[in-house]
C-alpha cells in the first residue's frame, strides 16, 4: 500500500472536522448511531459472548483433554493456558475453551469442548508457513484422517476435499448424516496447511428434533414450493424454477420471515429442500434460493439465498 501525503491529510482533516462539528452540535451524540425503523430492527439484534474464567487446578479434566488434543494435532505449546466457560450468543452455543498463549500474550491455539466433553473445535492461530510447495490432496486427506482420529473423532472416507485459497492448503470435510439423511451444514472439518501440518479440526453438530411420524412425499413438497413461488412471482418481472427437491435436516430460520427470529436456536428438523433458480429481473442479483419445507406438516420453516 502506498500512501499519498495529501490523501492522508484529507482523511485526517475530515475526521477531525467531523468530530468538532459533532461535538458542537450535540455532545450526547458523538457516535452517530445508525437509525433503525422499529419494525425492521425487531428480533434481529446483535449477539454477545459471555466468558467465565476456569481455573486449571479446579478443572483438571478439561485442561488434561486440551493437552491431549493439542499434542495429538501437533499444535504449539504456550507458556500459559487460559480456560473459560463461554456462552456464545454468536453461535448459539455453550462450551469450555482453553487457549495456549505465548510469552508475548498472543493466542497460539484454541480448543473447545461441548457440554458432554466432546471436541468441538481446535485451531492453531499462529501464522501459516510460507510454503512454495503444497502437500498432495491424498497426503492432506491422510494427514486429516490421522489427526482427526488422534483427536478422538470417529471418521471414515471424507465427503470432499478442497484446495483452500486462503491458506494454500486443503480443507477436508465429512458431511454429517442422520438416519441416512444429510444434516445441512453440519460437518467434521479438518484444515491442512500446505506443509501437511494440521491447522484445525472441528465438528459442527446441531441438535435434531424427532423425525415426523408421517412424512409428506417429494411431490407434495414440490407442490408446496410451487404454490409459494407462484405467489412470490405474481405480478413481478421475475419468476422461479425449481431445480431440485431433496430431503435434509435443516435449521428453522428467519430468512424469509422476521417474526421467526428468536434468541435461541431451534433444533434442526427434517425437511424437503427446494432448490430454486430465479429468472427474469431477479436473476441479475439473486443467484440461488432454497426453501425449507417441513417434512411433517408441509409448512415453510426457513430458507437461504445466494445474492
Amino acid at each position: 500500500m502506498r500512501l499519498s501525503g495529501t490523501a492522508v491529510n484529507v482523511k485526517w482533516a475530515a475526521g477531525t472536522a467531523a468530530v468538532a462539528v459533532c461535538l458542537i452540535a450535540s455532545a450526547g451524540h458523538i457516535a452517530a448511531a445508525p437509525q433503525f425503523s422499529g419494525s425492521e430492527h425487531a428480533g434481529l439484534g446483535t449477539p454477545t459472548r459471555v466468558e467465565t474464567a476456569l481455573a486449571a487446578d479446579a478443572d483438571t479434566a478439561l485442561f488434561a483433554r486440551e493437552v491431549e488434543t493439542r499434542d495429538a494435532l501437533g499444535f504449539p505449546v504456550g507458556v500459559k493456558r487460559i480456560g473459560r466457560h463461554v456462552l456464545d450468543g454468536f453461535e448459539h452455543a455453550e462450551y469450555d475453551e482453553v487457549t495456549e498463549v505465548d510469552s508475548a500474550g498472543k493466542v497460539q491455539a484454541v480448543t473447545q469442548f461441548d457440554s458432554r466433553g466432546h471436541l468441538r473445535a481446535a485451531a492453531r492461530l499462529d501464522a501459516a508457513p510460507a510454503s512454495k510447495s503444497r502437500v498432495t490432496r491424498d497426503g492432506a486427506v491422510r494427514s486429516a484422517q490421522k489427526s482427526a482420529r488422534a483427536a478422538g473423532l470417529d471418521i471414515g472416507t471424507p465427503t470432499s476435499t478442497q484446495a483452500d485459497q486462503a491458506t494454500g492448503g486443503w480443507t477436508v470435510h465429512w458431511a454429517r448424516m442422520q438416519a441416512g439423511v444429510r444434516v445441512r451444514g453440519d460437518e467434521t472439518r479438518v484444515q491442512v496447511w500446505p506443509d501437511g501440518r494440521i491447522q484445525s479440526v472441528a465438528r459442527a453438530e446441531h441438535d435434531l428434533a424427532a423425525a415426523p411420524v408421517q412424512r409428506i412425499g417429494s411431490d407434495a413438497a414440490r407442490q408446496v414450493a410451487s404454490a409459494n413461488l407462484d405467489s412470490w412471482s405474481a405480478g413481478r418481472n421475475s419468476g422461479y424454477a425449481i431445480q431440485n427437491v431433496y430431503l435434509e435436516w435443516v435449521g428453522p430460520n428467519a430468512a424469509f420471515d422476521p417474526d421467526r427470529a428468536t434468541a435461541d436456536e431451534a433444533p434442526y428438523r427434517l425437511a424437503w429442500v427446494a432448490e430454486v433458480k430465479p429468472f427474469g429481473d431477479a436473476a441479475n442479483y439473486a443467484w440461488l434460493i432454497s426453501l425449507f419445507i417441513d417434512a411433517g406438516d408441509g409448512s415453510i420453516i426457513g430458507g437461504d439465498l445466494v445474492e
Partner: protein
Amino acid sequence: MKRASAWLVSMLIAASTLAVPAQVAAYDAHVWSNSDAFKATCLGFNDTYPQQHYNLSVAQFAKLGYSPVLGALGPGFTRSAFLANVLADYAVYVHSHGDNYWAASGAPNIDSGFLQDPGAGNCNSSKDMVRSSSIKAVTQGSFYNIVIMSTCMLGSNSSTMPAAFEIAKTKQAADYEFYLGYVYHTWDSSSLRFEKAFWSYINGGAPHSRTLAAAFAYAASIGGYEAVSASEPFQANWWGNPTYDGTPLRPAGR
C-alpha cells in the same frame, strides 16, 4: 443554592468544551447493505439477511473502536453516497450482490463490483453497479484499516476490489490493513455464520488483544458452512497485515 451553583459551573465547563473543537480523531466507518433488491417488491418475499449482516457489522465496528459508524441499510446505500464518503473512511463494509465483471476494456480484464441498493420499490439492474475502478478513482493514495466485502466472489484471487482500497493481495503486508471477502458464490447463512465467528473472536477477550488474521483463522476453522455446490465450496479469503489487531489508526499511528 449550592446545587444550582454546581449545576451552573458544570454547564459552563460543558459549554466551553463544546465551543472548542476537540482534537480527538474520528475513525469513520461506513456499513452499507442492499436490502430493497431483496424485498417483496422484487422477490416476492422479504429477505432478512441484509439486515442481519448490517446490524452485526454496525455493532462490531463500533466495538472495535470505529466512530462514527455510518452508512445505510436500504435506500441510503447509493453509488453517489458510497463514493462521496469512502475517502474519509477507515473501515468499510458492504453486503450486496457482488461479482468479478469484465472491465470496460473487455476480457480477460476484470473490474469487480457490487450493486448499490436500488431504492424503495425498485429492483436492481446493471446500472446499479459500483465498480472497483470507480472506487479506486476516489480512494487513490488513501489507506484503509478494514474492508469487508460481504458479497459473492470478491475474495477470489482475481478480484480487483482490494486494489480499489490500496490493499495489495499479500498476507504479509506491513501497514495496518485487512481485507476480507468470499471466494465463490456464498449462501447468506454461511457468510453470516462466518462473520459472527470472526467478530466474536476479534472482539472477545481484552480489547485489541487478538489479530484479525487469527479471527479469520478461527472463523474458518469452526466449520458448519453450507456449500453452494461441490465446485463452489464455502471459502473466505483475506489479505493484509497478519499481526494487525483491528485498532482504528492512521498508518503512522504506531
